[in-house]
């Protein structure tokens, strides 16, 4: 295999890689806002609508110049967005149907024009069909300079209008209430998305360009809960996908770059989906299993405690059969795990009793649980203070009140760790 293209000294490769990274960067950054504004499909419509624009630009000028193509694509995309908003405003057609309608009609016109162009005499038109699936190798220095300028402009605009776009994506109604021109900002955001789509057309192609808006942004969302971080990450993911896809496409002759760039982005997404901390599937599964185990153990320990409490003896032997019948606890797994942890000790085959450590822990758990119950009974009277419902602990500010209520309700756990030592002493005497 000829690996000479990997040499970064090769000017052409350098241009191509730079161009692909820039397109990934801008579509990732703008994609974050498109995604959160629920405009992901808008990118798809814009990209498909751009094709007739590119063809008409060529038909009018007879030259293949990226700058002209971009103007054509931008104008066609703009017409497409206007068509979509006109359809949704003046008919009963919903936005998704309007998107589908505009996308297919514009794309159909584009394909038709492309066929016309292919049949024209002369050889100048070859390569125009590369706009379908992208050919990064066709990028030349001046193209990349143009892309750099646009990408820099896009990033600067997002940087300057970050808080306005955040508000637009999160709560446009509130933004309008603040007096910010949300309609104009929405239009501007659409325009920026259009530009991000347009500079990617050459490398990714109209068919798959929408994926570059959506995939890096979705992947980035897995890693962070902050919009600023998400935007930067999506840009980086996009840029990396662009570069990686372009490199992969050079492994074989005449490979379209679009699908490979999109596949690279998909790889980033899959890694994020599975392995991102907290939101990733693996992390969630681990967390779920851990929680399940913990809940099973605490439930079992509380059950043993409350049965012993009913018997009035902290050292009572509680059998599995009784636990199943009276507390619905099946399987001894949790009980055996508790025994291994030293909270229970076997009293007879299939029966356990609390150890001193187990009694202390069980007392704490039962008391905490009952404090919660009392809190919920009296939430109305106690309210006002912030209560963290996800937290495992009873709010500290209310503890004294709740403990008093607990006694009033007669719910104070009867077997306290101290009473156990009394009993033990009593037995010893």
């Amino acid at each position, binding site marked *: 295999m000829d690996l000479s293209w990997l040499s970064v000294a090769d000017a052409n490769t350098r241009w191509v890689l730079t161009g692909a990274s820039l397109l990934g960067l801008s579509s990732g950054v703008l994609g974050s806002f498109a995604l959160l504004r629920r405009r992901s499909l808008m990118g798809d419509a814009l990209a498909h609508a751009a094709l007739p624009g590119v063809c008409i630009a060529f038909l009018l000028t007879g030259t293949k110049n990226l700058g002209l193509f971009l103007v054509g694509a931008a104008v066609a995309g703009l017409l497409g967005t206007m068509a979509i908003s006109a359809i949704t405003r003046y008919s009963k057609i919903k936005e998704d149907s309007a998107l589908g309608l505009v996308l297919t009609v514009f794309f159909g016109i584009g394909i038709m024009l492309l066929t016309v162009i292919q049949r024209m005499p002369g050889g100048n038109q070859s390569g125009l069909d590369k706009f379908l699936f992208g050919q990064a190798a066709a990028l030349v220095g001046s193209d990349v300079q143009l892309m750099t300028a646009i990408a820099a402009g896009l990033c600067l605009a997002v940087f300057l209008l970050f808080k306005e776009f955040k508000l637009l994506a999160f709560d446009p*109604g509130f933004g309008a209430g*603040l*007096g910010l021109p949300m309609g104009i900002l929405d239009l501007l955001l659409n325009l920026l998305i259009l530009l991000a789509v347009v500079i990617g057309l050459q490398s990714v192609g109209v068919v798959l360009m929408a994926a570059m808006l959506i995939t890096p942004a979705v992947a980035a969302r897995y890693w962070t809960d*902050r919009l600023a971080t998400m935007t930067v990450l999506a840009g980086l993911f996009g840029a990396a996908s662009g570069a990686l896809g372009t490199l992969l496409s050079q492994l074989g002759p005449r490979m379209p770059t679009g699908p490979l760039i999109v596949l690279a982005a998909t790889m980033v997404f899959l890694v994020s989906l599975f392995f991102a901390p907290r939101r990733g599937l693996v992390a969630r599964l681990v967390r779920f299993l851990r929680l399940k185990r913990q809940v099973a153990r605490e439930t079992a320990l509380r059950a043993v405690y409350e049965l012993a409490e009913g018997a009035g003896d902290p050292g009572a032997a509680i059998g599995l059969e009784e636990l199943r019948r009276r507390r619905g606890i099946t399987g001894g797994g949790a009980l055996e795990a508790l025994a291994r942890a030293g909270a229970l000790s076997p009293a007879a085959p299939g029966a356990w009793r609390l150890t001193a450590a187990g009694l202390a822990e069980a007392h704490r758990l039962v008391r905490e649980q009952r404090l919660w119950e009392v809190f919920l009974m009296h939430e109305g009277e106690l309210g006002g203070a912030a209560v963290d*419902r996800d937290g495992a602990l009873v709010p500290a500010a209310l503890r004294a009140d709740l403990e008093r209520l607990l006694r009033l309700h007669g719910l104070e756990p009867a077997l306290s760790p101290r009473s156990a030592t009394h009993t033990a002493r009593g037995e010893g005497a």
Partner: protein
Amino acid sequence: MAEYPLEVRDLTVAYHRKPVVQSVNLTLPEGQLVGVVGPNGAGKSTMLKAILGLVPAAAGEVRVFGRPYAAQRSLVGYVPQRGSVDWDFPTDALDVVLMGRYGRLGWFRRPGAKDRELAMECLRQVGMADFANRQISQLSGGQQQRVFLARALAQDARLYFMDEPFAGVDAATEKAIVSLLGALKERGKTVVVVHHDLQTVKEYFDWLVLLNMRLIAFGPTEEVFTAENLQKAYGGRLTQFGAGAAAVLAAAKEA
């Protein structure tokens, strides 16, 4: 001449030619807690949104402190319904509250340490200071509502509009909202609240706007909250509420 916080003249909203809010005329006094009540679908939220220019009004004029609303936006705070946004948005509680400052910051400027401090103070006032850095999807419904209230506080407005702040919240949040309303009133703010629970109307509000597409009555609560007016707004429907409604009617008769 006294400047009223809110004057609404002949406000009409229509969807597909069907009028939803018909020729509403209102003048609200300053420093009062104003409840907007009426049956479901009576146009309470729509009227609010039309006042704020969020839905187009077919006719009418809104003046805030004597001048057209468009020129007075910075004096108006707004708490939308909680369900109106995506709570899985990548942001935390403090950041949402900071959005209340955006109107005063102006273009391109980012909130600074001072805005952050103020936003924290607003969170404190609704009892949410401990949750400042919590991702908003991890807050309970009531806590989300309080974050929205804190955001409106951060706007530092003189006239507030709240769209069903009590809907579906826990007791703690209800209490927090009530004490917040009291605090706002103490500072001389005027608060307009869309409300659905007739039983608490007398307790919470000084003034009432009774709406059923058209304005049924408005004025001090004790004058407006009468059995006669309620029957006018709710018609036979009120009796369907059963014992609760009977109690409300009885209470209204006493008033």
